[in-house]
């Protein structure tokens, strides 16, 4: 009898002991593979564009040979370069302006009770949730109503309009993570509102401001729908250039531009995250 029990148990315990590590690590490999596949899916069309920017053939079908011709062509394609310059300029300006307005507004929401605070507080969620197309046409309608000529300025204004709420929510989440006592202490010691903001609040909310600014910059570079409606017939930004050329065929210099832009923006992100990490570690050091 005892023998029987043993023989009954043995294979089970053996199985558990032998199976566990092997199965676990196999499972881990599969899980990692899944994560890599999802990332590959997200990068696939970009990598294809980058690869074909070095392709000799004009058609993005098969790789016939390495060339840098499209990069040369790019610097002769004035319409494309202008579109690129406008897109980048709008992204930088709308990021700067929306970050400033968003940051001071987040401070205002926390520090003060003001006329219509609750209502304004609700309104700023609207650009985050409404369909972009509704935001786009409503801005187009109001620009027309006020007889503002559609062009670079209206696209910039539209980008500022959809970016501000994202900056406010990002800054606000850091703002509420520390106690008001610190600011009150500064004021008790004789600092003016401006001094408190400059020397106490601002350094503390810097990570929230940076992530809000990165979000605003990314949203601006990515936007198609709102730019489409806010732009006039003569405005030339990257999505509009592509949209008007996509039916007739896009030349590989667009691929070359995409590649260059990707390199520049990734570098910019890398530098800003280094700054963010530095401020964080400095604060932890103190």
């Amino acid at each position, binding site marked *: 009898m005892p023998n029987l029990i043993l023989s009954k148990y043995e294979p089970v315990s053996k199985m558990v002991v032998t199976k566990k590590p092997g199965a676990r690590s196999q499972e881990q490999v599969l899980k990692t593979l899944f994560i890599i596949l*999802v*990332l590959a899916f997200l990068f696939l069309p970009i990598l294809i564009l980058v690869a074909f920017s070095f392709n000799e053939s004009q058609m993005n079908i098969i790789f016939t040979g390495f060339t840098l011709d499209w990069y040369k062509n790019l610097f002769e394609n004035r319409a494309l370069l202008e579109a690129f310059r406008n897109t980048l300029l709008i992204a930088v300006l709308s990021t700067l302006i929306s970050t400033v307005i968003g940051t001071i507004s987040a401070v205002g929401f926390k520090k*003060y009770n003001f006329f219509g605070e609750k209502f304004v507080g609700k309104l700023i969620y609207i650009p985050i949730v409404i*369909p972009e197309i*509704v935001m786009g046409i*409503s801005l187009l309608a109001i620009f027309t109503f006020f007889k503002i000529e559609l062009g670079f300025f209206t696209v910039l204004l539209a980008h500022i*309009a959809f970016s501000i709420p994202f900056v406010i929510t990002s800054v606000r989440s850091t703002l509420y993570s520390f106690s008001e006592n610190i600011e009150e202490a500064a004021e008790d010691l004789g600092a003016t509102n401006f001094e408190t903001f400059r020397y106490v609040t601002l350094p503390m909310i810097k990570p929230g401001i940076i992530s809000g600014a990165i979000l605003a910059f*990314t949203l601006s570079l990515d936007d198609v729908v709102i730019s489409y409606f806010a732009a006039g017939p003569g405005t030339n930004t990257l999505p509009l250039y592509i949209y008007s050329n996509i039916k007739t065929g896009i030349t590989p210099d667009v691929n070359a531009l995409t590649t260059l832009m990707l390199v520049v923006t990734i570098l910019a992100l890398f530098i800003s995250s280094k700054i963010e990490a530095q401020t964080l570690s400095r604060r932890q050091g103190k």
Partner: protein
Amino acid sequence: MKPRLDPFKLLTTIPVIIYSFFLILLPLVYIFFISFFKSDNYGGFEISFSLKNYLEIFNPAYLKIFAVSIFIGLTTTLICLLIAYPFSIFLRDKSQKTQNLIIKLVMVPFLTNSLIRTYGWITLLRKNGVVNSSLLSLGIIDSPLNLMYNNFGVIVGMVYTLLPFMILPVYSAVSKVDQNYLDAAEDLGAGKLRRFFRVYLPLTLPGAFNGSLMVFIPAIGFFFISDILGGGKAMIIGNLIKNQFLTARNWPLGAALSIVLLVMTFGLVKLYEKIGGNLDELGGG
């Protein structure tokens, strides 16, 4: 005593009041008014009050576009959920450093304009594109598949463009689930599926709803994806509104369609708040 005017208060409150009035409230109120006006067929409108534009939406051709849009939107949302959950749960096991890096990588594609990325999909999906020629040369298929200019192409494009908006909130919710709950469930004999449905899902529901909102709402409006990858065969509400404003020049009908979309959105947001969602976390925050 006279109320003291605090310049710092003016600086931190006046801009946001002006901004939210002129660039959020006024445009939407104006669209709301236009939706009751009458189109003069020349791109303008007459000031009047009628529900004609709203009744016109019940035209079978428009209802069909609504049905197609909702089908595409729901399918896209479902596929994104089915990718984002395992992705987030698997990512939880990695070191914090790896997790941060991978979440940053999920955002990187946004630095390339979504129209350019959609154009990249043409290269992949068309008849003689990368996918078809790879499958042909591997001998998996004999003749090229129709991967675009149909609903399939549109859904691929939507899933691709909107997936990060699902991954960010779902990951954020999944990473906050207390390991102790999962261990307790496992000790009590719950298998993987049971742990998912009884622990992960209830605790991450607001995150999943947040992601679903951020995927479904754009998916019925992104006219450029259905334009490019659907080839005009798959019309969604976004195309319809765009056409009313730019081609058919019937602003009142376009405005009425936008108001319907807006009411739908507000309904979904209310529902999100009801199940315990936080407005500040919308949009991946």
